């Protein structure tokens, strides 16, 4: 694989606007960055796809193991909410989407850095914006990206009622854009999709209701479970009939305690890095990550510390595998999973070794293997 520098299309901002990509720039800085792109080989894409499906299999096995052995403490999940997580797992409530963040250098096996299993973003740009880029910049090439089609196909498999609500908090254009995109895919799948902000959700004494006092039977929330459960209405979730997407069992996978659990269950697996709930056990330099942190906050790596509000639930220490640095940029490979299956790739770059909310999205393409 290689990183290619190229001139951005003169009208890329106008194209972004027409697609409804309202956060191509974030806080005045470019977020969508087509001054560079990544070229992969078909074999490398196959390797990423295979590793993603394998890690998904391991993660679900680990979740089942956690349920069977009540490992809520290892995952940093309070005992009081564990029954909700267990019930969700026992019912096998379907998952819509997730994103693995992988270290990949094209030479060795992809390594799991973390699993964004609850509220991953960077989906619209991976599914739609970089595909539009491909069709105009490399129209004869291909892209590891069947995200849009997979999302539309996934909604019916969730077996939800016709009306599905969508929610996120206010004041984040990126969150709202992601939710609106997912709502669009649900509508294309035949659902009635209705949006309301998270603080607008009502409780009528026995049910969660929307602004028209209709029952919220199913809701996609871009709002993590650990926040939902801490909120004032959190205690009402278990007694209500509402279906939540992602389901509560995803809390097990979104905890970075999963990294330590995976390593304990599958030591020396080629797609895993050594990780423990205590420091100093990996036998190498380590990165310290909060169990329920987001966007690279509150991490400590050799020579690098990020600040932020997370960490009260505890930490995990993972062997530090520095991201490959090319052109002065560190790239992390975000491998998307839709309904349990690998379906696409989004690459983000940063000038530091930790990917943060300010890291830029860079498109990719690959040349399909020629038929002989």
């Amino acid at each position, binding site marked *: 694989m290689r990183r290619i520098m190229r001139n951005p299309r003169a009208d890329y901002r106008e194209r972004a606007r027409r697609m409804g990509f309202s956060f191509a720039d974030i806080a005045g800085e470019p977020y969508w960055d087509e001054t560079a792109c990544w070229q992969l080989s078909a074999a490398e894409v196959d390797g990423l796809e295979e590793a993603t499906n394998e890690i998904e299999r391991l993660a679900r096995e680990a979740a089942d193991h956690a349920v069977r052995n009540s490992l809520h403490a290892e995952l940093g999940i309070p005992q009081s909410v564990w029954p909700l997580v267990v019930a969700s797992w026992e019912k096998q409530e379907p998952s819509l989407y997730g994103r693995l963040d992988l270290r990949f250098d094209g030479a060795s096996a992809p390594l799991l850095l973390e699993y964004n299993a609850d509220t991953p973003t960077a989906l619209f740009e991976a599914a739609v914006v970089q595909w539009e880029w491909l069709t105009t910049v490399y129209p004869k090439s291909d892209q590891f990206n069947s995200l849009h089609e997979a999302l539309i196909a996934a909604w019916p498999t969730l077996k939800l009622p016709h009306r599905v609500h969508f929610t996120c908090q206010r004041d984040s254009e990126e969150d709202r854009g992601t939710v609106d995109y997912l709502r669009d895919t649900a509508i294309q799948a035949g659902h009635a999709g209705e949006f309301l902000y998270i603080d607008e959700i009502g*409780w009528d004494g026995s049910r969660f209701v929307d602004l028209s006092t209709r029952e919220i039977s199913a809701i996609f929330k871009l709002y993590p479970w650990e*926040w939902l459960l801490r*909120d004032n209405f959190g205690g009402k979730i278990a007694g209500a009939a509402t279906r939540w997407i992602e389901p509560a069992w995803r809390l097990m996978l979104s905890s970075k305690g999963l990294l330590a659990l995976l390593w304990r269950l599958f030591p020396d697996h080629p797609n895993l890095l050594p990780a423990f709930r205590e420091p100093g056990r990996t036998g190498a330099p380590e990165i310290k990550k909060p169990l329920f942190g987001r966007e690279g906050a509150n991490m400590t790596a050799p020579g690098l510390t990020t600040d932020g509000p997370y960490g009260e639930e505890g930490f995990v220490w993972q062997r530090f595998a520095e991201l490959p640095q090319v052109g002065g940029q560190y790239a992390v490979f975000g491998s998307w999973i839709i309904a349990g299956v690998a379906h696409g790739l989004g690459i983000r770059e940063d000038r530091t070794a930790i990917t943060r909310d300010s890291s830029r999205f860079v498109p990719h393409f690959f040349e399909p293997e020629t038929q002989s």
Partner: protein
Amino acid sequence: MIRAAQIALVVMGGGLFMSAVYHQHEQARRCAEARRQNLPDREEICASGSSGSSWHSHFSSFGSASSRSGSAPAPSVARGGFGGTGAHFASAGG
């Protein structure tokens, strides 16, 4: 502690009613306080919550008013119970 978000005030039929959410919370607080102080009528205070008397008295008056008007009583709706934790963070995405 009773948070503002838990006190849902709804205007119905010209009257102002606190929601069940608030009353259940308030009743639990009163019961706990009565037991902590070992008040002679502590069990009556706690039982009044389980029978729903304080909440029920509000609902009864609302129900009567509704009956007179001939319309079905609408349940009170509390809002703002989600989002409090997230308000401290810029984005919920990862």
